[in-house]
Protein backbone atom coordinates (compact mmCIF):
# COMPACT_ATOMS: atom_id res chain seq x y z
CA UNK A 1 0.00 0.00 0.00
CA UNK A 2 1.30 3.39 -0.90
CA UNK A 3 -0.10 5.42 1.93
CA UNK A 4 0.03 8.98 0.74
CA UNK A 5 1.79 10.85 3.48
CA UNK A 6 -0.83 13.31 4.59
CA UNK A 7 -0.67 15.27 7.80
CA UNK A 8 -4.02 13.85 8.88
CA UNK A 9 -3.99 11.56 11.92
CA UNK A 10 -5.89 8.58 10.55
CA UNK A 11 -5.82 6.48 13.69
CA UNK A 12 -9.10 5.37 15.16
CA UNK A 13 -10.42 2.47 17.20
CA UNK A 14 -12.89 -0.35 17.18
CA UNK A 15 -14.36 -0.02 20.64
CA UNK A 16 -11.26 0.20 22.83
CA UNK A 17 -8.95 -1.45 20.28
CA UNK A 18 -6.84 1.11 18.43
CA UNK A 19 -6.21 0.74 14.70
CA UNK A 20 -3.88 2.78 12.50
CA UNK A 21 -6.33 3.17 9.61
CA UNK A 22 -10.10 3.56 9.58
CA UNK A 23 -10.43 1.45 6.42
CA UNK A 24 -11.06 -2.28 6.80
CA UNK A 25 -12.12 -5.11 4.55
CA UNK A 26 -15.75 -6.27 4.79
CA UNK A 27 -16.69 -9.72 5.95
CA UNK A 28 -17.06 -12.17 3.08
CA UNK A 29 -15.52 -9.78 0.58
CA UNK A 30 -11.85 -10.48 1.20
CA UNK A 31 -11.99 -14.08 2.41
CA UNK A 32 -9.28 -14.33 5.10
CA UNK A 33 -7.04 -11.71 3.56
CA UNK A 34 -4.47 -13.94 1.85
CA UNK A 35 -5.56 -13.24 -1.70
CA UNK A 36 -5.22 -9.49 -1.19
CA UNK A 37 -1.55 -9.76 -0.34
CA UNK A 38 -0.35 -8.98 -3.88
CA UNK A 39 -2.41 -5.77 -3.87
CA UNK A 40 -2.52 -4.42 -0.32
CA UNK A 41 -0.23 -4.20 2.71
CA UNK A 42 -2.42 -6.14 5.13
CA UNK A 43 -0.65 -4.80 8.20
CA UNK A 44 -1.30 -1.19 7.22
CA UNK A 45 -5.06 -1.40 6.77
CA UNK A 46 -7.39 -1.04 9.75
CA UNK A 47 -8.09 -4.73 9.99
CA UNK A 48 -9.01 -7.76 7.95
CA UNK A 49 -12.64 -8.49 8.73
CA UNK A 50 -12.76 -12.21 8.07
CA UNK A 51 -15.48 -14.15 6.30
CA UNK A 52 -18.14 -15.12 8.86
CA UNK A 53 -17.12 -18.36 10.49
CA UNK A 54 -19.38 -20.94 12.09
CA UNK A 55 -18.61 -23.84 14.35
CA UNK A 56 -18.42 -26.45 11.62
CA UNK A 57 -16.94 -26.31 8.12
CA UNK A 58 -19.60 -25.37 5.58
CA UNK A 59 -19.77 -26.12 1.88
CA UNK A 60 -21.97 -23.13 1.20
CA UNK A 61 -24.83 -23.19 -1.31
CA UNK A 62 -24.81 -24.66 -4.78
CA UNK A 63 -24.03 -22.35 -7.70
CA UNK A 64 -25.09 -20.00 -9.21
CA UNK A 65 -24.19 -17.91 -6.21
CA UNK A 66 -24.24 -14.46 -7.68
CA UNK A 67 -25.97 -12.16 -10.11
CA UNK A 68 -24.70 -8.82 -11.22
CA UNK A 69 -27.24 -6.00 -10.78
CA UNK A 70 -27.13 -2.30 -11.70
CA UNK A 71 -24.21 -0.85 -9.72
CA UNK A 72 -24.27 -3.83 -7.42
CA UNK A 73 -24.56 -7.56 -7.09
CA UNK A 74 -26.62 -10.20 -5.39
CA UNK A 75 -24.91 -13.06 -3.58
CA UNK A 76 -25.96 -16.20 -1.89
CA UNK A 77 -22.75 -17.90 -0.87
CA UNK A 78 -24.24 -19.60 2.15
CA UNK A 79 -21.25 -18.88 4.39
CA UNK A 80 -18.84 -21.35 2.82
CA UNK A 81 -15.92 -21.68 5.17
CA UNK A 82 -13.51 -23.84 7.11
CA UNK A 83 -15.30 -23.67 10.48
CA UNK A 84 -13.70 -22.37 13.64
CA UNK A 85 -11.08 -25.13 13.75
CA UNK A 86 -9.86 -24.32 10.27
CA UNK A 87 -9.84 -20.62 11.08
CA UNK A 88 -7.78 -21.14 14.22
CA UNK A 89 -5.41 -23.62 12.60
CA UNK A 90 -4.72 -21.96 9.27
CA UNK A 91 -6.08 -18.50 8.75
CA UNK A 92 -5.51 -16.58 11.97
CA UNK A 93 -1.89 -17.69 12.39
CA UNK A 94 -1.19 -16.65 8.80
CA UNK A 95 -2.57 -13.17 9.48
CA UNK A 96 -0.84 -12.89 12.86
CA UNK A 97 2.51 -13.77 11.30
CA UNK A 98 2.16 -10.82 8.96
CA UNK A 99 1.19 -8.41 11.69
CA UNK A 100 -2.31 -8.05 10.26
CA UNK A 101 -5.16 -7.42 12.68
CA UNK A 102 -8.10 -9.81 12.36
CA UNK A 103 -11.56 -8.59 13.19
CA UNK A 104 -13.25 -11.98 13.27
CA UNK A 105 -16.81 -12.26 12.03
CA UNK A 106 -18.76 -15.02 13.73
CA UNK A 107 -22.10 -16.51 12.74
CA UNK A 108 -24.46 -19.17 13.97
CA UNK A 109 -28.02 -20.34 14.05
CA UNK A 110 -28.33 -20.61 17.82
CA UNK A 111 -27.34 -18.23 20.60
CA UNK A 112 -25.01 -20.86 22.08
CA UNK A 113 -23.14 -21.22 18.78
CA UNK A 114 -22.21 -17.57 18.85
CA UNK A 115 -21.12 -17.79 22.48
CA UNK A 116 -18.98 -20.85 21.81
CA UNK A 117 -17.29 -19.15 18.88
CA UNK A 118 -16.54 -16.08 20.99
CA UNK A 119 -15.07 -18.28 23.71
CA UNK A 120 -12.90 -20.18 21.24
CA UNK A 121 -11.43 -16.88 20.04
CA UNK A 122 -10.37 -15.68 23.50
CA UNK A 123 -6.75 -14.71 23.65
CA UNK A 124 -5.98 -15.82 20.11
CA UNK A 125 -2.98 -13.90 18.76
CA UNK A 126 -3.79 -11.33 16.13
CA UNK A 127 -7.48 -11.20 16.93
CA UNK A 128 -8.50 -7.61 17.45
CA UNK A 129 -12.15 -8.19 18.18
CA UNK A 130 -15.40 -9.75 17.00
CA UNK A 131 -18.01 -8.74 14.49
CA UNK A 132 -21.20 -10.64 15.15
CA UNK A 133 -23.08 -11.46 11.96
CA UNK A 134 -26.63 -11.71 13.21
CA UNK A 135 -28.09 -11.76 9.70
CA UNK A 136 -28.49 -15.50 10.02
CA UNK A 137 -31.65 -17.51 10.39
CA UNK A 138 -32.43 -18.37 13.99
CA UNK A 139 -33.27 -22.08 14.06
CA UNK A 140 -35.12 -21.61 17.30
CA UNK A 141 -37.51 -19.07 15.81
CA UNK A 142 -38.68 -20.71 12.60
CA UNK A 143 -35.72 -19.31 10.69
CA UNK A 144 -36.41 -15.66 11.37
CA UNK A 145 -33.20 -13.73 11.05
CA UNK A 146 -31.72 -12.66 14.42
CA UNK A 147 -31.01 -9.16 13.15
CA UNK A 148 -34.68 -8.57 12.37
CA UNK A 149 -35.79 -9.08 15.95
CA UNK A 150 -34.38 -6.79 18.63
CA UNK A 151 -34.86 -9.42 21.33
CA UNK A 152 -33.17 -12.26 19.46
CA UNK A 153 -30.40 -9.90 18.39
CA UNK A 154 -29.74 -8.79 21.96
CA UNK A 155 -29.73 -12.36 23.21
CA UNK A 156 -26.91 -13.14 20.81
CA UNK A 157 -24.94 -10.05 21.69
CA UNK A 158 -25.33 -10.53 25.43
CA UNK A 159 -24.13 -14.11 25.13
CA UNK A 160 -21.18 -13.15 22.97
CA UNK A 161 -20.17 -10.27 25.23
CA UNK A 162 -20.26 -12.59 28.22
CA UNK A 163 -18.22 -15.30 26.52
CA UNK A 164 -15.73 -13.14 24.64
CA UNK A 165 -12.28 -12.03 25.66
CA UNK A 166 -12.70 -8.84 27.68
CA UNK A 167 -10.11 -7.19 25.44
CA UNK A 168 -12.12 -7.96 22.31
CA UNK A 169 -14.59 -5.30 21.26
CA UNK A 170 -17.85 -6.89 20.15
CA UNK A 171 -19.57 -5.26 17.18
CA UNK A 172 -23.10 -6.24 16.19
CA UNK A 173 -23.63 -6.26 12.45
CA UNK A 174 -27.07 -4.93 11.64
CA UNK A 175 -29.38 -5.69 8.77
CA UNK A 176 -31.07 -2.80 6.93
CA UNK A 177 -34.14 -4.97 6.29
CA UNK A 178 -35.99 -3.75 9.35
CA UNK A 179 -38.68 -1.17 10.04
CA UNK A 180 -36.71 0.44 12.83
CA UNK A 181 -32.94 0.08 12.73
CA UNK A 182 -32.53 2.50 15.63
CA UNK A 183 -34.61 0.16 17.77
CA UNK A 184 -32.35 -2.78 16.96
CA UNK A 185 -29.27 -0.62 17.54
CA UNK A 186 -30.55 0.41 20.95
CA UNK A 187 -31.35 -3.17 21.88
CA UNK A 188 -27.95 -4.59 20.98
CA UNK A 189 -25.97 -1.78 22.57
CA UNK A 190 -28.12 -2.23 25.66
CA UNK A 191 -27.08 -5.88 25.58
CA UNK A 192 -23.41 -4.96 25.61
CA UNK A 193 -22.33 -4.37 21.99
CA UNK A 194 -19.25 -2.14 21.97
CA UNK A 195 -20.05 -0.95 18.48
CA UNK A 196 -22.21 -1.48 15.43
CA UNK A 197 -21.32 -2.65 11.93
CA UNK A 198 -23.75 -1.27 9.40
CA UNK A 199 -24.98 -2.45 7.05
CA UNK A 200 -25.25 -6.02 5.91
CA UNK A 201 -26.75 -6.68 2.48
CA UNK A 202 -30.38 -5.98 1.53
CA UNK A 203 -32.51 -8.97 0.64
CA UNK A 204 -33.00 -9.05 -3.11
CA UNK A 205 -33.98 -11.27 -6.01
CA UNK A 206 -33.13 -11.53 -9.69
CA UNK A 207 -35.00 -13.67 -12.20
CA UNK A 208 -33.20 -15.05 -15.23
CA UNK A 209 -35.22 -14.04 -18.27
CA UNK A 210 -34.05 -17.17 -20.10
CA UNK A 211 -34.76 -19.86 -17.53
CA UNK A 212 -37.62 -17.75 -16.10
CA UNK A 213 -36.60 -18.84 -12.61
CA UNK A 214 -34.67 -17.04 -9.86
CA UNK A 215 -31.00 -16.85 -10.81
CA UNK A 216 -29.71 -17.88 -7.42
CA UNK A 217 -29.95 -21.38 -6.10
CA UNK A 218 -31.06 -19.88 -2.80
CA UNK A 219 -33.82 -17.88 -4.60
CA UNK A 220 -33.13 -14.63 -2.73
CA UNK A 221 -29.69 -13.20 -2.03
CA UNK A 222 -27.94 -10.22 -0.50
CA UNK A 223 -27.68 -6.98 -2.46
CA UNK A 224 -24.42 -5.07 -2.06
CA UNK A 225 -22.33 -2.48 -3.83
CA UNK A 226 -22.72 1.23 -4.66
CA UNK A 227 -26.43 0.68 -5.42
CA UNK A 228 -27.15 0.37 -1.69
CA UNK A 229 -24.89 3.18 -0.50
CA UNK A 230 -27.69 5.71 0.12
CA UNK A 231 -29.53 3.17 2.27
CA UNK A 232 -26.39 2.38 4.23
CA UNK A 233 -25.64 6.06 4.79
CA UNK A 234 -29.18 6.66 5.97
CA UNK A 235 -28.85 3.83 8.51
CA UNK A 236 -25.54 5.19 9.81
CA UNK A 237 -27.00 8.70 9.98
CA UNK A 238 -30.12 7.62 11.89
CA UNK A 239 -28.25 5.48 14.40
CA UNK A 240 -25.50 8.04 15.02
CA UNK A 241 -28.20 10.67 15.50
CA UNK A 242 -29.95 8.54 18.11
CA UNK A 243 -26.87 7.02 19.77
CA UNK A 244 -23.98 9.43 19.21
CA UNK A 245 -21.74 7.65 21.73
CA UNK A 246 -21.84 4.28 19.97
CA UNK A 247 -18.95 3.63 17.56
CA UNK A 248 -20.03 2.65 14.07
CA UNK A 249 -18.15 0.62 11.48
CA UNK A 250 -19.84 1.88 8.32
CA UNK A 251 -20.18 -0.04 5.11
CA UNK A 252 -22.34 -0.50 2.05
CA UNK A 253 -21.18 0.50 -1.40
CA UNK A 254 -17.99 2.28 -0.45
CA UNK A 255 -15.77 2.55 -3.51
CA UNK A 256 -13.81 5.78 -3.13
CA UNK A 257 -12.36 7.99 -0.44
CA UNK A 258 -15.23 10.43 -0.92
CA UNK A 259 -17.73 7.61 -0.37
CA UNK A 260 -15.90 6.74 2.84
CA UNK A 261 -15.92 10.39 3.82
CA UNK A 262 -19.72 10.44 3.59
CA UNK A 263 -19.88 7.57 6.09
CA UNK A 264 -17.45 9.30 8.43
CA UNK A 265 -19.37 12.56 8.27
CA UNK A 266 -22.59 10.62 8.94
CA UNK A 267 -21.08 9.13 12.08
CA UNK A 268 -18.87 6.14 11.26
CA UNK A 269 -15.52 6.03 13.04
CA UNK A 270 -14.26 3.33 10.66
CA UNK A 271 -15.44 1.82 7.39
CA UNK A 272 -15.37 -1.50 5.58
CA UNK A 273 -14.88 -1.82 1.83
CA UNK A 274 -16.69 -4.87 0.52
CA UNK A 275 -17.93 -5.42 -3.01
CA UNK A 276 -15.64 -2.71 -4.39
CA UNK A 277 -12.73 -5.08 -3.79
CA UNK A 278 -14.11 -7.30 -6.55
CA UNK A 279 -13.79 -4.37 -8.90
CA UNK A 280 -10.46 -3.17 -7.59
CA UNK A 281 -8.38 -5.55 -5.48
CA UNK A 282 -6.39 -2.64 -4.06
CA UNK A 283 -9.53 -0.72 -3.09
CA UNK A 284 -8.96 -0.90 0.68
CA UNK A 285 -5.57 0.79 0.44
CA UNK A 286 -6.74 3.25 -2.20
CA UNK A 287 -9.77 4.29 -0.14
CA UNK A 288 -7.49 4.92 2.84
CA UNK A 289 -5.25 7.17 0.77
CA UNK A 290 -8.13 9.00 -0.85
CA UNK A 291 -9.90 9.50 2.46
CA UNK A 292 -6.76 10.89 4.04
CA UNK A 293 -6.34 13.32 1.16
CA UNK A 294 -9.99 14.35 1.29
CA UNK A 295 -9.80 15.02 5.03
CA UNK A 296 -6.66 17.04 4.59
CA UNK A 297 -8.21 19.14 1.82
CA UNK A 298 -11.11 19.91 4.11
CA UNK A 299 -8.84 21.07 6.87
CA UNK A 300 -9.28 18.19 9.30
CA UNK A 301 -6.23 17.44 11.40
CA UNK A 302 -7.54 14.00 12.32
CA UNK A 303 -10.11 11.52 11.25
CA UNK A 304 -11.70 11.68 14.68
CA UNK A 305 -12.67 15.32 14.18
CA UNK A 306 -14.67 14.41 11.10
CA UNK A 307 -16.72 11.64 12.69
CA UNK A 308 -20.36 12.75 12.70
CA UNK A 309 -19.46 16.21 11.40
CA UNK A 310 -22.52 16.36 9.12
CA UNK A 311 -24.76 16.36 12.19
CA UNK A 312 -23.11 19.41 13.68
Amino acid sequence: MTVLQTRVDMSTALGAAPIPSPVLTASGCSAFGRELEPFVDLSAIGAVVTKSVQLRPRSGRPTPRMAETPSGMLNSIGLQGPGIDGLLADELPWLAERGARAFVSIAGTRVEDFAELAARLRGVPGVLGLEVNISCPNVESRGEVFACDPVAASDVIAAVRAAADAAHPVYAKLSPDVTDIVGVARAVTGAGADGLSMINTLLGLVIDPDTMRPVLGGVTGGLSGPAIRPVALRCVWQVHQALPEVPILGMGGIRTGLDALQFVLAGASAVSVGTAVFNDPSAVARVHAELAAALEQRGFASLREAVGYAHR
Partner: protein
Amino acid sequence: MSALTRPAPRAYAPPVQRTVEVIGRRPVEAYVELTLAAPEIAERAEPGQFVAFAVGGPTSGLLLRRSIAISTAEAGVVTVVVSAAGPGSTWLTERRVGDALDVVGPLGRRFPDPPPGARALLVGGGYGAAALVGLAARLRDRGCPVDVVAGAAGADRLCSVQELTGLADRLEVTTDDGSSGRRGLVTLAVDELLPEAGVVYACGPMPMLRAVADAATARGIPSYVAVEESMACGIGVCMTCVLPVVGEDGRTRFSRSCTEGPVFGGDRVRFADVGALPWDVVGADAMGVVAP
Protein backbone atom coordinates in the same frame (compact mmCIF):
# COMPACT_ATOMS: atom_id res chain seq x y z
CA MET B 1 -11.55 -44.44 -9.61
CA SER B 2 -7.95 -43.73 -8.75
CA ALA B 3 -6.93 -40.20 -9.65
CA LEU B 4 -4.97 -39.71 -12.84
CA THR B 5 -4.11 -36.10 -12.24
CA ARG B 6 -2.57 -33.97 -9.55
CA PRO B 7 -4.06 -30.55 -8.90
CA ALA B 8 -2.81 -27.90 -11.30
CA PRO B 9 0.19 -26.06 -9.88
CA ARG B 10 -0.05 -22.52 -8.54
CA ALA B 11 1.18 -19.72 -10.73
CA TYR B 12 4.83 -18.78 -10.43
CA ALA B 13 4.14 -15.10 -9.87
CA PRO B 14 1.39 -13.17 -8.13
CA PRO B 15 -0.95 -11.06 -10.25
CA VAL B 16 -0.62 -7.33 -10.78
CA GLN B 17 -3.17 -4.62 -11.51
CA ARG B 18 -2.32 -2.31 -14.38
CA THR B 19 -3.80 0.16 -16.82
CA VAL B 20 -2.79 -1.10 -20.24
CA GLU B 21 -3.18 0.17 -23.76
CA VAL B 22 -5.03 -1.55 -26.56
CA ILE B 23 -2.50 -1.74 -29.39
CA GLY B 24 -4.43 -3.97 -31.74
CA ARG B 25 -8.02 -4.86 -32.45
CA ARG B 26 -9.06 -7.43 -35.02
CA PRO B 27 -12.50 -8.87 -35.59
CA VAL B 28 -12.10 -12.61 -36.19
CA GLU B 29 -15.37 -14.16 -37.31
CA ALA B 30 -17.81 -13.83 -34.42
CA TYR B 31 -15.09 -12.64 -32.03
CA VAL B 32 -12.77 -9.71 -31.48
CA GLU B 33 -9.09 -10.20 -30.79
CA LEU B 34 -7.54 -7.52 -28.63
CA THR B 35 -3.80 -7.02 -28.33
CA LEU B 36 -2.60 -5.26 -25.21
CA ALA B 37 0.70 -3.66 -24.32
CA ALA B 38 0.97 -5.25 -20.88
CA PRO B 39 4.60 -6.11 -20.17
CA GLU B 40 4.25 -6.96 -16.49
CA ILE B 41 1.37 -9.29 -17.15
CA ALA B 42 2.96 -10.84 -20.23
CA GLU B 43 6.15 -11.69 -18.38
CA ARG B 44 4.24 -13.42 -15.57
CA ALA B 45 1.62 -15.23 -17.64
CA GLU B 46 1.55 -19.00 -18.09
CA PRO B 47 -0.72 -20.98 -20.44
CA GLY B 48 -4.12 -21.57 -18.85
CA GLN B 49 -4.19 -18.34 -16.89
CA PHE B 50 -6.62 -15.49 -17.44
CA VAL B 51 -6.97 -11.77 -16.90
CA ALA B 52 -9.86 -9.76 -15.48
CA PHE B 53 -10.97 -6.49 -17.05
CA ALA B 54 -12.92 -3.66 -15.46
CA VAL B 55 -15.68 -2.85 -17.94
CA GLY B 56 -17.81 0.12 -18.92
CA GLY B 57 -15.47 2.98 -18.09
CA PRO B 58 -15.68 5.51 -15.27
CA THR B 59 -19.48 5.88 -15.35
CA SER B 60 -20.13 2.15 -15.48
CA GLY B 61 -22.95 0.48 -13.59
CA LEU B 62 -21.20 -2.86 -14.13
CA LEU B 63 -19.21 -3.40 -11.00
CA LEU B 64 -17.66 -6.78 -11.62
CA ARG B 65 -14.63 -7.56 -13.72
CA ARG B 66 -14.86 -9.82 -16.74
CA SER B 67 -12.55 -12.82 -16.89
CA ILE B 68 -10.93 -13.54 -20.22
CA ALA B 69 -8.41 -16.27 -20.98
CA ILE B 70 -4.96 -15.25 -22.09
CA SER B 71 -4.40 -16.47 -25.62
CA THR B 72 -0.76 -15.53 -26.02
CA ALA B 73 1.65 -13.53 -23.88
CA GLU B 74 5.02 -12.71 -25.35
CA ALA B 75 7.35 -9.77 -25.83
CA GLY B 76 5.32 -7.60 -23.49
CA VAL B 77 2.09 -8.17 -25.39
CA VAL B 78 -0.98 -10.04 -24.20
CA THR B 79 -3.59 -11.23 -26.68
CA VAL B 80 -7.17 -12.13 -25.79
CA VAL B 81 -10.16 -13.20 -27.87
CA VAL B 82 -13.51 -11.87 -26.72
CA SER B 83 -16.99 -13.01 -27.60
CA ALA B 84 -19.74 -10.41 -27.18
CA ALA B 85 -22.01 -12.34 -24.82
CA GLY B 86 -23.59 -9.68 -22.61
CA PRO B 87 -23.04 -6.00 -21.85
CA GLY B 88 -19.58 -6.32 -20.33
CA SER B 89 -17.98 -8.47 -22.99
CA THR B 90 -19.72 -6.44 -25.69
CA TRP B 91 -18.13 -3.30 -24.25
CA LEU B 92 -14.76 -5.04 -24.40
CA THR B 93 -15.21 -5.94 -28.05
CA GLU B 94 -15.93 -2.27 -28.79
CA ARG B 95 -12.58 -1.00 -27.51
CA ARG B 96 -10.40 0.79 -30.01
CA VAL B 97 -6.66 1.02 -30.52
CA GLY B 98 -5.28 3.59 -28.09
CA ASP B 99 -7.94 2.98 -25.45
CA ALA B 100 -6.83 2.18 -21.92
CA LEU B 101 -8.05 -0.90 -20.06
CA ASP B 102 -7.83 -1.63 -16.35
CA VAL B 103 -6.71 -5.23 -16.04
CA VAL B 104 -5.73 -7.61 -13.26
CA GLY B 105 -3.66 -10.65 -14.07
CA PRO B 106 -2.36 -13.13 -14.69
CA LEU B 107 -4.90 -15.00 -12.59
CA GLY B 108 -5.55 -18.63 -11.83
CA ARG B 109 -3.48 -21.76 -12.22
CA ARG B 110 -1.64 -22.87 -15.29
CA PHE B 111 -1.82 -26.06 -17.33
CA PRO B 112 0.67 -28.52 -15.82
CA ASP B 113 3.52 -29.80 -17.93
CA PRO B 114 2.93 -33.00 -19.89
CA PRO B 115 4.35 -36.27 -18.68
CA PRO B 116 7.80 -36.80 -20.24
CA GLY B 117 7.59 -38.04 -23.81
CA ALA B 118 3.85 -37.78 -23.98
CA ARG B 119 1.99 -36.63 -27.08
CA ALA B 120 -0.45 -33.86 -26.18
CA LEU B 121 -3.98 -33.55 -27.44
CA LEU B 122 -5.43 -30.04 -27.16
CA VAL B 123 -9.17 -29.61 -27.53
CA GLY B 124 -10.75 -26.18 -27.87
CA GLY B 125 -14.44 -25.33 -28.14
CA GLY B 126 -15.52 -21.96 -29.55
CA TYR B 127 -13.35 -19.14 -28.21
CA GLY B 128 -11.89 -21.72 -25.80
CA ALA B 129 -9.41 -22.58 -28.54
CA ALA B 130 -7.77 -19.19 -28.05
CA ALA B 131 -6.66 -20.23 -24.57
CA LEU B 132 -4.71 -23.13 -26.12
CA VAL B 133 -2.54 -21.09 -28.48
CA GLY B 134 0.03 -20.17 -25.85
CA LEU B 135 0.03 -23.73 -24.54
CA ALA B 136 0.52 -25.21 -28.00
CA ALA B 137 3.46 -22.90 -28.63
CA ARG B 138 5.06 -23.75 -25.31
CA LEU B 139 4.63 -27.51 -25.85
CA ARG B 140 6.01 -27.29 -29.33
CA ASP B 141 9.03 -25.29 -28.10
CA ARG B 142 9.69 -28.02 -25.60
CA GLY B 143 9.53 -30.68 -28.27
CA CYS B 144 6.25 -32.17 -27.26
CA PRO B 145 4.19 -33.37 -30.22
CA VAL B 146 0.84 -31.61 -30.35
CA ASP B 147 -2.48 -32.58 -31.89
CA VAL B 148 -5.30 -30.10 -31.84
CA VAL B 149 -9.05 -30.40 -32.23
CA ALA B 150 -10.95 -27.13 -32.61
CA GLY B 151 -14.71 -27.29 -32.64
CA ALA B 152 -17.62 -24.89 -32.63
CA ALA B 153 -21.31 -24.59 -33.47
CA GLY B 154 -20.51 -23.12 -36.86
CA ALA B 155 -17.59 -21.81 -38.91
CA ASP B 156 -17.99 -18.27 -37.54
CA ARG B 157 -17.59 -19.54 -33.97
CA LEU B 158 -14.27 -21.24 -34.60
CA CYS B 159 -11.30 -19.50 -33.14
CA SER B 160 -7.52 -19.30 -33.49
CA VAL B 161 -7.48 -22.06 -36.12
CA GLN B 162 -4.84 -20.33 -38.15
CA GLU B 163 -2.50 -19.87 -35.19
CA LEU B 164 -3.02 -23.45 -34.06
CA THR B 165 -2.43 -24.83 -37.58
CA GLY B 166 1.06 -23.39 -37.44
CA LEU B 167 1.74 -25.03 -34.08
CA ALA B 168 0.10 -28.45 -34.31
CA ASP B 169 1.30 -31.61 -35.91
CA ARG B 170 -2.25 -32.49 -36.74
CA LEU B 171 -5.28 -30.24 -36.53
CA GLU B 172 -8.88 -31.35 -36.85
CA VAL B 173 -11.79 -28.98 -37.13
CA THR B 174 -15.37 -29.93 -36.34
CA THR B 175 -18.56 -27.88 -36.47
CA ASP B 176 -22.02 -28.85 -35.33
CA ASP B 177 -23.51 -27.71 -38.62
CA GLY B 178 -20.70 -28.85 -40.89
CA SER B 179 -20.02 -25.32 -42.10
CA SER B 180 -16.29 -25.93 -41.60
CA GLY B 181 -14.30 -29.11 -41.14
CA ARG B 182 -16.20 -32.23 -40.21
CA ARG B 183 -19.81 -32.10 -39.12
CA GLY B 184 -20.20 -33.14 -35.50
CA LEU B 185 -18.90 -32.56 -32.00
CA VAL B 186 -15.22 -32.38 -31.11
CA THR B 187 -15.51 -35.85 -29.62
CA LEU B 188 -15.70 -37.20 -33.16
CA ALA B 189 -12.09 -36.19 -33.76
CA VAL B 190 -11.03 -36.61 -30.15
CA ASP B 191 -12.00 -40.28 -30.17
CA GLU B 192 -9.69 -40.83 -33.12
CA LEU B 193 -6.68 -38.95 -31.75
CA LEU B 194 -7.04 -39.99 -28.12
CA PRO B 195 -5.39 -43.43 -28.41
CA GLU B 196 -2.07 -41.79 -29.24
CA ALA B 197 -2.31 -39.08 -26.60
CA GLY B 198 -0.36 -39.12 -23.34
CA VAL B 199 -2.16 -36.06 -21.95
CA VAL B 200 -5.22 -34.02 -22.90
CA TYR B 201 -5.76 -30.30 -22.40
CA ALA B 202 -9.15 -28.77 -23.04
CA CYS B 203 -10.86 -25.42 -22.87
CA GLY B 204 -14.42 -24.69 -23.89
CA PRO B 205 -18.00 -25.04 -22.73
CA MET B 206 -18.71 -27.33 -19.80
CA PRO B 207 -20.50 -30.09 -21.73
CA MET B 208 -17.54 -30.33 -24.07
CA LEU B 209 -15.07 -30.41 -21.20
CA ARG B 210 -17.09 -33.14 -19.59
CA ALA B 211 -17.18 -35.26 -22.73
CA VAL B 212 -13.46 -34.86 -23.40
CA ALA B 213 -12.48 -35.47 -19.78
CA ASP B 214 -14.68 -38.56 -19.57
CA ALA B 215 -13.24 -39.98 -22.78
CA ALA B 216 -9.68 -39.41 -21.57
CA THR B 217 -10.35 -40.80 -18.12
CA ALA B 218 -12.03 -43.86 -19.61
CA ARG B 219 -8.80 -44.60 -21.42
CA GLY B 220 -6.66 -43.85 -18.39
CA ILE B 221 -5.20 -40.73 -19.95
CA PRO B 222 -4.70 -37.71 -17.70
CA SER B 223 -6.64 -34.64 -18.80
CA TYR B 224 -6.68 -31.01 -17.70
CA VAL B 225 -9.66 -28.78 -18.34
CA ALA B 226 -9.87 -25.00 -18.05
CA VAL B 227 -13.39 -24.38 -16.76
CA GLU B 228 -15.55 -21.31 -17.07
CA GLU B 229 -17.65 -20.50 -14.03
CA SER B 230 -19.42 -17.25 -13.32
CA MET B 231 -16.95 -15.12 -11.34
CA ALA B 232 -17.50 -12.02 -9.25
CA CYS B 233 -13.92 -11.26 -8.18
CA GLY B 234 -11.51 -13.48 -10.12
CA ILE B 235 -8.95 -13.30 -7.33
CA GLY B 236 -10.32 -15.80 -4.82
CA VAL B 237 -12.05 -13.64 -2.24
CA CYS B 238 -15.78 -13.97 -3.00
CA MET B 239 -16.51 -17.72 -3.29
CA THR B 240 -18.96 -17.37 -6.16
CA CYS B 241 -17.06 -19.48 -8.69
CA VAL B 242 -16.97 -22.84 -6.98
CA LEU B 243 -17.24 -26.33 -8.46
CA PRO B 244 -17.31 -29.74 -6.77
CA VAL B 245 -13.74 -30.97 -7.21
CA VAL B 246 -12.18 -34.12 -5.78
CA GLY B 247 -9.05 -33.32 -3.81
CA GLU B 248 -5.89 -35.35 -3.37
CA ASP B 249 -7.40 -36.86 -0.24
CA GLY B 250 -10.32 -38.14 -2.31
CA ARG B 251 -12.81 -35.80 -0.67
CA THR B 252 -14.90 -33.42 -2.71
CA ARG B 253 -14.78 -29.73 -1.92
CA PHE B 254 -16.36 -26.67 -3.45
CA SER B 255 -13.20 -25.30 -5.05
CA ARG B 256 -12.82 -21.80 -6.43
CA SER B 257 -12.33 -21.94 -10.17
CA CYS B 258 -10.49 -18.61 -10.13
CA THR B 259 -7.68 -19.56 -7.76
CA GLU B 260 -7.78 -23.34 -7.43
CA GLY B 261 -8.63 -23.42 -11.16
CA PRO B 262 -9.49 -22.56 -13.84
CA VAL B 263 -7.35 -25.57 -14.72
CA PHE B 264 -8.48 -28.71 -12.95
CA GLY B 265 -7.75 -32.35 -13.51
CA GLY B 266 -10.48 -33.60 -15.82
CA ASP B 267 -10.99 -36.63 -13.60
CA ARG B 268 -11.35 -34.41 -10.52
CA VAL B 269 -14.23 -32.18 -11.58
CA ARG B 270 -17.61 -33.71 -10.73
CA PHE B 271 -19.28 -32.35 -13.85
CA ALA B 272 -22.61 -34.06 -13.15
CA ASP B 273 -22.85 -32.26 -9.82
CA VAL B 274 -22.03 -28.74 -10.96
CA GLY B 275 -24.83 -26.49 -9.68
CA ALA B 276 -25.88 -29.06 -7.08
CA LEU B 277 -24.83 -29.72 -3.51
CA PRO B 278 -23.99 -33.42 -3.19
CA TRP B 279 -24.08 -34.73 0.35
CA ASP B 280 -20.45 -35.79 0.30
CA VAL B 281 -19.03 -32.33 -0.36
CA VAL B 282 -17.00 -31.23 2.65
CA GLY B 283 -19.29 -29.12 4.82
CA ALA B 284 -22.56 -30.19 3.16
CA ASP B 285 -23.67 -31.65 6.47
CA ALA B 286 -23.54 -28.19 8.05
CA MET B 287 -25.91 -27.03 5.30
CA GLY B 288 -28.42 -29.64 6.37
CA VAL B 289 -27.71 -32.04 3.50
CA VAL B 290 -27.66 -35.61 4.76
CA ALA B 291 -26.22 -38.74 3.25
CA PRO B 292 -28.94 -40.60 1.37
